């Protein structure tokens, strides 16, 4: 299967959306941006729900849009999960699930319904109407309905935005399991960087209606173009696998792909692939190796860029072998330690969040 491309432009009186990006043949592409940046409109353009879209959309060799052709929504074979679910109120959960399945244009390779129902844990809801469901249940049904159609591409428009924190945490594991099992590409719109970090492989960053970065999420986090590396929400993701367990301390050691070691709380199976999420605000710097520190994770690195300065704080990029870590320190420390480009430092990581994948 070839990758899919999308290069579109939509002009409206009050705004304009322009995006040029590649959709991988599988995995989750996150569409990230602040509210009003054109994320949802972009997704709607892909789904064929907006009129007057110009440009080219090709998915797996099939043309959805070009100069001579506009394929209607119902012919694009997508699965679309709306922010508010949009379950049909006159049908039961079962009726909603069947609606898309019955209209599947390609009857081959039909999704295993019972498996999906089990995966999303909606078996006990099949006879209910949408007004009898909680917000989280509605979204799980909406995801199931979109997938049962056996789409070529899954489009998710902030499926968690309307839910409170507790409900979000309830659905995220289902989405993570889908991520593992799904062999079609998915586009996931969100303004929440944490959801992106847990679910996405690649990312498209939207700013004021324009796509400003398209690529691997780990690269995006440390790239100046993506504008993700700012004082207010800087974070990095490192990929690694578990190499050691210490039962008496309830600590596991993780080796990153680039040879750095991190010790994280909790017992994880040896060899398990994990993502380490390190917030810049949890990373402090020292010019000498601290002795007698309670911080377990201290690694050597080199200041490679000053990414942002704001409100008396400064965001630095530190290269530790080939892993990149961001550190948010005060302007005053920056001056006192006489930090500058290429200066050797010891990176002290106070907290690491892990996500298995």
């Amino acid at each position, binding site marked *: 299967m070839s990758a899919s491309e999308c290069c579109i432009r939509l002009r409206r009186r009050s705004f304009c959306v322009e995006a040029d990006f590649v959709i991988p043949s599988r995995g989750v592409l996150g569409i990230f941006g602040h509210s009003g940046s054109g994320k949802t409109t972009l997704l709607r353009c892909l789904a*064929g*729900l907006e009129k007057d879209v110009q440009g080219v959309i090709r998915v797996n060799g099939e043309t959805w849009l070009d100069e001579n052709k506009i394929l209607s929504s*119902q012919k694009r074979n997508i699965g679309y999960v*709306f922010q508010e679910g*949009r379950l*049909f109120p006159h049908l039961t959960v079962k009726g909603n699930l069947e*609606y898309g399945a019955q*209209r599947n244009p390609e009857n081959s390779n039909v999704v295993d319904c019972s498996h999906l129902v089990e995966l999303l844990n909606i078996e006990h809801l099949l006879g209910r109407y949408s007004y009898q469901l909680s917000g989280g249940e509605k979204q799980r049904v909406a995801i199931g309905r979109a997938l049962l*159609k056996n789409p070529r591409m899954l489009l998710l428009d902030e499926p968690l935005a309307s839910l409170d924190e507790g409900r979000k945490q309830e659905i995220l594991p289902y989405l993570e399991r889908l991520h593992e099992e799904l062999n079609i590409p998915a586009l996931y719109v969100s303004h929440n960087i944490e959801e992106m970090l847990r679910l996405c492989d690649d990312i498209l960053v939207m700013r004021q209606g324009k796509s400003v970065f398209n690529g691997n999420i780990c690269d995006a986090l440390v790239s100046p173009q993506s504008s993700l590396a700012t004082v207010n929400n800087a974070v990095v993701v490192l990929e690694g696998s578990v190499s050691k367990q210490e039962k008496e301390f309830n600590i596991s050691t993780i080796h990153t792909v680039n040879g750095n070691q991190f010790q994280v709380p909790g017992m994880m199976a040896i060899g398990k692939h994990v993502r380490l999420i390190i917030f810049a605000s949890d990373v402090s710097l020292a010019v000498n190796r601290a002795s007698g520190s309670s911080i377990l994770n201290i690694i050597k690195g080199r200041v490679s860029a000053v990414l942002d300065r704001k409100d008396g704080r400064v965001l630095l990029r530190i290269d530790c072998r080939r892993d990149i870590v961001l550190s948010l320190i005060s302007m005053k420390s920056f001056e006192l330690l006489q930090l500058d480009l290429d200066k050797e430092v010891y990176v002290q990581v106070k907290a690491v969040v892990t996500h298995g994948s």
Partner: protein
Amino acid sequence: MFPGLDPLLLTAKLAMLTTLILLVIGTPAAWWLANTSSRIKPVIEAVVALPIVLPPTVLGFYLLVIMSPQSTIGSWWVDITGQTLTFSFSGLVIASVIYSLPFVVQPIQNAFESVGRDMMEAAYTLGAKPLDAFFTVAVPLAKRGFLTGGILGFAHTLGEFGVVLMVGGNIPGETRVASIAIYDHVEMLEYDQAHVLAAILLAFAFGTMLFMYLLNHRLKVRS
């Protein structure tokens, strides 16, 4: 059958036929009005609503002029059917359809508007073609509007008097509907017969309204 009840049967036949025609032509009209962003929408809405405010005699007068054998439409009708549109049951049906149009179109339009684009979009992304989505999503979700429109159209046709008198006259078995018959009976001081017809109409009207509100209440509870 008791001959005095003939006007009732004729009224029922007229109301049923009118409602049926209105549902068939009113539904696409309501859908268009609910979804269009055309500039002439307010104009069409005003035209549809006219029979609500217009005195039935005014409407009846214009219909009489348009349908008379001397007019284009009227003479064309005589050419194909051999009958005149005025003072015939066919003419009565046409007049009733126009007279009751807003009572059917407006509730259905409101119902379609409350269905909104969101649900239709969901149906499209699930692979439904527009007509399929219309019948499987829009119509079921707008069923309260259809119910209200159908019943109001039926009930309103039952009660029409002025338009019928202008266009249909008072021909037994052809255009002598219940409301005209009651008027006639009263004119001739036949209060007994007037009582029978009036009571039946009253009971029927109350029963219809009660049925509509009860059903509406039940549907509201469910959705």
